[in-house]
């Protein structure tokens, strides 16, 4: 390292004038076969909804390919797959919803396969730096048991990273920034 990084500052309460856009929550085009929704709430340490949060997600497609900036990771062949979703509103109620497809498994440390996962950044007023978490899927128990990243997480906290199926093509994933059931956050 020759140059130190520029420090982070909070996104503040007014990011809605600049960051969200209508198609932002769509990591895939609406109508994509196999599309799923992942929705949930963001809560603070008092158990109250965080109405001014911003969520961003990043993931591979079902074949483990990325819609990467420079084509790294193989390049997705799913039409309209962006792999990135951004969700945050001017007048939120603490909820978020993204439209995506379930990611495939990717190689991880030690040559072991990771379980299907989605990287998540959480931003808000009162957060001086983003918090990073991962969405795993409760209906992938074998893959989850083998994942070299998920198995680093203390076992009693792993449940906070599992999106629960709530119906055909729908999952629920809540984020608790602090307090009982606090979501696992990562040092990335």
């Amino acid at each position, binding site marked *: 390292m020759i140059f130190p990084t520029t420090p982070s*500052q909070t*996104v503040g309460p007014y990011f809605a*004038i600049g960051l969200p856009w209508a198609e932002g929550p769509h990591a895939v085009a609406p109508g994509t076969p196999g599309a799923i929704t992942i929705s949930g709430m963001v809560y*603070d*340490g008092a158990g109250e909804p965080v109405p001014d949060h911003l969520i961003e997600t990043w993931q591979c497609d079902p074949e483990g390919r990325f*819609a990467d900036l*420079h084509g790294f990771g193989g390049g997705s062949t799913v039409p309209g797959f962006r792999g990135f979703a951004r969700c945050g509103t001017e007048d939120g109620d603490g909820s978020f919803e993204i439209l995506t497809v379930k990611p495939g498994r990717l190689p991880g440390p030690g040559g072991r396969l990771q379980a299907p996962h989605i990287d998540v950044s959480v931003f808000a007023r*009162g957060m001086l730096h983003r918090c990073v978490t991962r969405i795993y899927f409760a209906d992938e128990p074998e893959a989850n048991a083998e994942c070299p990243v998920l198995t680093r997480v203390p076992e009693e906290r792993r449940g906070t990273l599992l999106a629960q199926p709530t119906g055909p093509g729908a999952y629920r994933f809540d984020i608790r920034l602090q307090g009982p059931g606090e979501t696992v956050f990562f040092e990335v």
Partner: protein
Amino acid sequence: MSETTQVETEIYDPVTDTPQRYMREPPGAHPPLDYPPYKSTALRHPKEPLVYLPHTITEITGPQLGPERVHGELDADLTRQHPGEPIGERIIVTGRVMDTEGKPLRDTLVEIWQANAAGRYRHRWDRWPAPLDPNFSGAGRCVTDAEGRYRFITIKPGPYPWGNHYNAWRPAHIHFSLLGRAFAQRLVTQMYFPGDPFFPYDPIFNSVLDPAARERMISRFSVHGTEPNWAQCYEFDIYLRGPGATPFEEAF
């Protein structure tokens, strides 16, 4: 193989020219999540220790958002988005997005948002008695060029009051959001202006505990970038995380 050669081949992948791992930032590089002088951090900071996330392909890749978000020159010119011109000092805000090795990051999306010259945001929650400007929305975006350079035309924002403590004011600032090339590089920061009288009193600015690091958030007035009869220029280079060697923690 000499030590120098070994480090060089680990920096950027020779085929993809992309880091295979990103450096871990030293303590103090960023503000703490728990910072009591900034009151709303109290309920929004995790209390459990962070779990170490090794850099896998998910963390070293990143989205292509340029074509989606930037449709033309007007996206980067916040003074020409309405029928009339906004009130205030027209400024050029320009700089380069680079990594910690000094390598320019090309084709990467830069998004900004800000208050108007009076310090008022065009957002329904900002209600303090400063005038809105019908010719200013306050948001822009552009993609860096081959040298990693971005360039915006905008109006110098004013400071504005907020409720953190008695007589609290934010120094004038422009919010910057950078995707970089990879998920690991994502950064949201604020650009400040030299000599702002509110620096000593602002808990958000001072949450960056190292004084040298605070200086890196302050733009530089550029007389040579200033264009005669038209606009002042402020320069602001942004450094995102660059490559790092695989640390011991990942050898399992």
